[in-house]
């Protein structure tokens, strides 16, 4: 019953322009086949000789070396076809060799690189890599067809190191079918020596070529040698399984068809005599070349002939309408009876990608998958990677065991994201390999009875695992023709469950003890509606065992099977029922039936059940003699009940058991028969899908916490102070409202920075620090509650309750605020909070620490530039934080003015640049300590001084929008 179909290798391989689809579409007597197809059918082997043009014109016509990719693809496809055959256990040796022709003809590879007529392995990766050497073979000046076939005179001796195609075909392995694949991009042509050509041709000895005229004359002689003197005829002589004869496949690259008149006539007739056996695969341009070369070797394939496909553009390309085939789809339909397919896909542009789409909707990108991948329908994909641009894919797919899983419409879809690829044309080719189909008896123990019409049930199974074909999409069109004992019987159509029911009446006087079933199974497949239906060769149906024929017994019969259970077992349904027919059809066949044995149903794991048999409502116990009584001519149905008894239902399963009955005749108790019935009950668990909302909440909270944790963590670990190159000064100062003065030896003087104030040694090296101590001030990073806020700096001084820095102070006032960079930082630390005095406040002593450039001149410039800002900032803070003076002393106490001369701003103002000491009135503080224009009077805390307000506002605008209005902390700098 088993039969292998040689879909592509017999009928598709090379040299033929007719695919197997076309060949087999017609009735067998109308089918035409090429000599190669006939030879392969007989010899199951192939020798392919590649005759490759190496003329210099290739540098212009094929600058991207697409011919090399085409040759590599052809060899890979050939190896893949062989692999597909061998995976089914069919031997199909394939031998290949390569000749390069131009000025002369030689083997393309030496013996080490590729042996003469080497056996092509299924994994041809090494050979394909070596074939990359053809990229450099494009420097010959001639295109010498004569030398390509025979590089020496007709009656001469072979030339050392040269070999023509005719001699090489003759040396092909004995009994193999020969195919000559001849690739060229030009006509028979010779260049004179002045243009790099040869002065003498090896097949035309003694004739000197000196100029263009001589070269033209040599071409004429060459044409005559080929066509008139028998060189081409030798290619056509005899069979193609020995000698010089071969099927010829010409691949001609170029738009100018007239250039190829000669090579066309060599292939298809017109040059020489005899019957041509060749075909031409024109390639107008290099984009066609790859496809033409592989088709020249492995044929056009079984897929749609409209193989020039558009490109889908846009995001909707992933959506597939199963009922619609688009212009950018290459569709093909697979049914049971097929085992594998090879697919070639050529993308028309580097921006295009191709996807294989299975009937169940699974999509596999051919661009992204390399190596082996198993699809959900069980199909194993093996993709051979090619280095080519645009991409070329060769896919070998071995279909899974169960056709019900993978049968249906497949397609390859070409798509791109860029509209520029919309007008690019893609190509595809498909090669399908047949598998196994078998017709078998559904119930091998069935018997036929004389005087009755029996039913024979046959079923169609596929693949090594003999899977029953039940899905309509998986069912090929079949025609079953049967004979029973040599007589044709009506089979009808196959049922949706994959079976045929054949009614067969057995006469009372039927002489034999059995009947023999023979026949043929014809299968029709149609890869695509655009293709004709292919009628495959018929399978002989010859493996069905003979069916026993018996007389109607004198006891009740239980011939039929237990009916299928209408329902399945599950957690919720622990018991299912079916029926079994018992009948006494003959007048003497009345009797009783005993249930003699029960093999309780069970599965392969730990599930088991209990079966019970009921006759009406009465249970039939095992061993109860004659529990079921059947009168002659009566018939009724027993009820079979299967209940779950052990095990947890977690997966699909089947409980299988057996019932054995003994039937005894009433008329003649010595007449009895045994009946064994198989029970098969399906177990299908019921699943509920529910949502664990607690898990949703927990994971949601965790996601939010994780995000916050990440932000806080990064803030914590990444927050550091930036310390740049520079120095610092730490200077005792007195701040009177609006005026910052230096204190030296108890005397207040104009603020200035002396050279000796600048401390370079105590300054840490430039870098990033968590905290830095400068002159008794501890600078540290300051984190915000906002995870997005910028990191800032803080400054604290031990024992000081009022600390002001660049950005003010904190609410408590004991920490100065500044940015995370110490460059240009300053910190004023008051010895004590300022005391309010009416609308003003008393001068405040303290220390100012500043980070300045190391160069004293630059440092002083910096101070001069920003001193007024510093004064304003300190002034604003002091005004806000001035405290009431202590209460007056109680009676009896002495009122002592503790203000000393040192604490009074009466010291002369010094010019910081000249050091001169002008004598000026001690107060008020309305003079620029650096000798500049007059400063406004210190602000009155009770009223807004217009001048001061304008000045601050003006600076505010000039200060990069900083808030300069007081000691409040700047709001966190939120990122969004």
């Amino acid at each position, binding site marked *: 019953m088993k039969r292998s179909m040689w879909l592509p290798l017999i009928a598709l391989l090379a040299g033929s322009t007719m695919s197997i689809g076309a060949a087999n579409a017609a009735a067998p007597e109308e089918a035409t086949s090429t000599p190669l197809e006939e030879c392969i059918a007989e010899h199951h082997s192939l020798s392919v000789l590649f005759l490759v043009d190496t003329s210099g014109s290739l540098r212009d016509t094929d600058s991207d070396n697409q011919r090399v990719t085409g040759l590599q693809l052809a060899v890979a496809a050939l190896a893949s076809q062989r692999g597909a055959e061998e995976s089914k256990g069919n031997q199909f040796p394939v031998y290949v060799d390569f000749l390069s022709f131009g000025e002369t003809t030689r083997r393309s590879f030496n013996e080490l690189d590729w042996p003469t007529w080497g056996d092509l392995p299924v994994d041809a990766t090494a050979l394909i890599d070596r074939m990359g050497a053809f990229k450099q073979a494009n420097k010959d000046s001639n295109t010498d067809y004569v030398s390509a076939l025979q590089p020496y005179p007709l009656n001469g001796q072979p030339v050392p190191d040269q070999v023509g195609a005719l001699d090489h075909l003759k040396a092909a392995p004995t009994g193999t079918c020969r195919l000559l694949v001849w690739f060229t991009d030009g006509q028979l042509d010779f260049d004179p020596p002045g243009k790099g050509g040869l002065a003498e041709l090896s097949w035309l000895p003694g004739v000197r070529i000196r100029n263009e005229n001589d070269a033209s004359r040599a071409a004429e002689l060459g044409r005559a040698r080929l066509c008139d003197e028998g060189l081409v005829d030798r290619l056509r002589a005899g069979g193609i399984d020995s000698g010089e004869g071969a099927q010829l496949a010409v691949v001609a690259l170029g738009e100018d068809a007239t250039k190829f008149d000669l090579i066309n006539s060599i292939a298809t007739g017109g040059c020489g005599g005899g019957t041509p056996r060749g075909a031409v695969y024109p390639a107008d341009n290099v984009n066609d070349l790859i496809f033409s070369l592989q088709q020249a070797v492995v044929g056009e394939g079984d897929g749609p002939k409209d193989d020039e496909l558009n490109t889908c553009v846009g995001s909707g390309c992933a959506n597939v309408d199963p009922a619609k085939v688009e212009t950018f789809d290459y569709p093909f339909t697979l049914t049971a009876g097929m085992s594998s397919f090879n697919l070639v896909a050529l993308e028309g542009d580097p921006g295009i990608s191709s996807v294989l789409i299975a009937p169940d909707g699974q999509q596999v990108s051919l661009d992204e998958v390399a190596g082996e991948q198993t699809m959900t329908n069980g199909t194993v994909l093996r993709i051979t990677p090619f280095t080519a641009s645009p991409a070329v894919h060769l896919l070998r797919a071995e279909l899974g065991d169960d056709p019900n899983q993978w049968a249906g419409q497949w397609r390859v879809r070409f798509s791109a994201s860029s509209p520029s690829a919309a007008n690019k044309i893609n190509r595809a080719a498909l090669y399908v390999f047949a598998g196994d189909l078998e017709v078998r008896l559904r119930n091998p123990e069935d018997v036929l009875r004389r005087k009755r019409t029996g039913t024979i049930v046959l079923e169609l199974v596929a693949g090594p695992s003999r899977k029953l074909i039940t899905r309509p999409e998986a069912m090929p069109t079949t025609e079953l023709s049967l004979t029973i004992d040599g007589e044709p019987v009506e089979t009808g159509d196959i049922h949706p469950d994959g079976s045929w029911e054949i009614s067969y009446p057995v006469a009372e006087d039927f002489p034999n003890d059995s009947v023999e079933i023979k026949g043929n199974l014809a299968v029709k497949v149609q890869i695509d509606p655009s293709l004709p239906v292919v009628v495959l060769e018929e399978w002989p149906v010859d493996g069905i065992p003979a069916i026993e024929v018996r007389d109607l017994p004198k006891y009740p019969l239980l011939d039929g099977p237990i009916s299928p259970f209408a329902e399945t077992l599950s957690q919720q349904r622990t018991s299912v029922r079916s029926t079994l027919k018992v009948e006494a059809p003959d007048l003497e066949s009345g009797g009783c039936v005993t249930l003699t044995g029960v093999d309780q149903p069970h599965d392969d794991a730990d599930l088991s059940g209990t079966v019970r048999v009921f006759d009406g409502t009465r249970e039939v116990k095992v061993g109860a003699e004659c529990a079921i009584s059947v009168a002659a001519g009566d018939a009724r149905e027993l009820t079979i009940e299967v209940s779950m008894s052990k095990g947890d239902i977690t997966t699909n399963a089947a409980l299988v058991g057996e019932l054995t009955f003994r039937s005894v005749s009433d008329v003649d108790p010595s007449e009895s028969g045994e009946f064994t019935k198989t029970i098969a009950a399906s177990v299908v668990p019921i699943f*509920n899908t529910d949502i664990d909302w607690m*898990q949703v909440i927990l*994971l949601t909270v965790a996601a939010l916490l994780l995000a916050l944790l990440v932000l806080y963590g990064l803030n914590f670990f990444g927050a550091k102070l930036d310390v740049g190159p520079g120095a610092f000064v730490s200077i005792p100062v007195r701040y009177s409202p609006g005026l910052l003065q230096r204190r030296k030896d108890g005397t207040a003087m104009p603020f200035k920075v002396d050279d000796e104030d600048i401390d370079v040694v105590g300054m840490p090296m430039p870098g990033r620090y968590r905290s830095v101590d400068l002159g008794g001030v501890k600078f540290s990073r300051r984190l915000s509650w906002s995870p997005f806020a910028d990191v800032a700096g803080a400054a604290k001084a031990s024992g000081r309750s009022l600390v002001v820095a660049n950005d003010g102070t904190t609410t408590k006032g004991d920490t100065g605020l500044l940015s995370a960079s110490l460059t240009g930082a300053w910190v004023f630390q008051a010895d004590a909070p300022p005391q309010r005095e009416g609308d003003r406040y008393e001068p405040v002593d303290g220390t100012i620490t500043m980070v300045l450039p190391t160069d004293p001149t630059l440092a002083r410039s*910096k101070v001069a530039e920003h001193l007024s800002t510093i004064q304003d900032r300190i002034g604003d803070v002091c005004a806000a934080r001035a405290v009431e003076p202590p209460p007056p002393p109680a009676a009896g106490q002495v009122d002592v003015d503790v203000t000393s001369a040192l604490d009074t701003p009466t010291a002369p103002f010094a010019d910081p640049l000249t050091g001169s000491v002008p004598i000026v009135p001690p107060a008020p503080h309305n003079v620029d300590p650096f000798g500049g224009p007059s400063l406004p009077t210190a602000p009155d805390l009770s009223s807004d001084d217009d001048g001061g307000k304008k000045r601050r506002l003006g600076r505010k605008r000039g200060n990069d929008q900083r808030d300069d209005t007081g000691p409040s902390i700047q709001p966190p700098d939120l990122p*969004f």
Partner: protein
Amino acid sequence: MTDNFAYDPGSGLSTAVSIDRDDVAVGPPIGILSIALGAVAVQAALFLVGEPPAHWVGYFIGSVLVPVVVFWFRRVDLTRQRSGLYRSRSGVSWLPAVVLFLGVGLAVAHAFYLAIHKRLA
């Protein structure tokens, strides 16, 4: 490095400013934001895979990777803003927040799928 005195970037008196100044105007680090957007796109694409491992990956991309990248963007953006040569780009200020909330939102959506359980009835 920021100069606390550098209220007027053009004064030329601040050595720190003059050292750090890049003569070319800088904008927000769009490249980093693109990484965050790409991560969100991957996170969305993982819904198509539909398997629990893909949902876990999507969950952690949204709850960890996207916040890290947005934080990174914010740090670099703030540093550039302090340079004095910052040129803001319209629309970019709110985009990090959108990306962050989108990432966390998709993480929650992945969590929803992770909480769907098929149980025997």
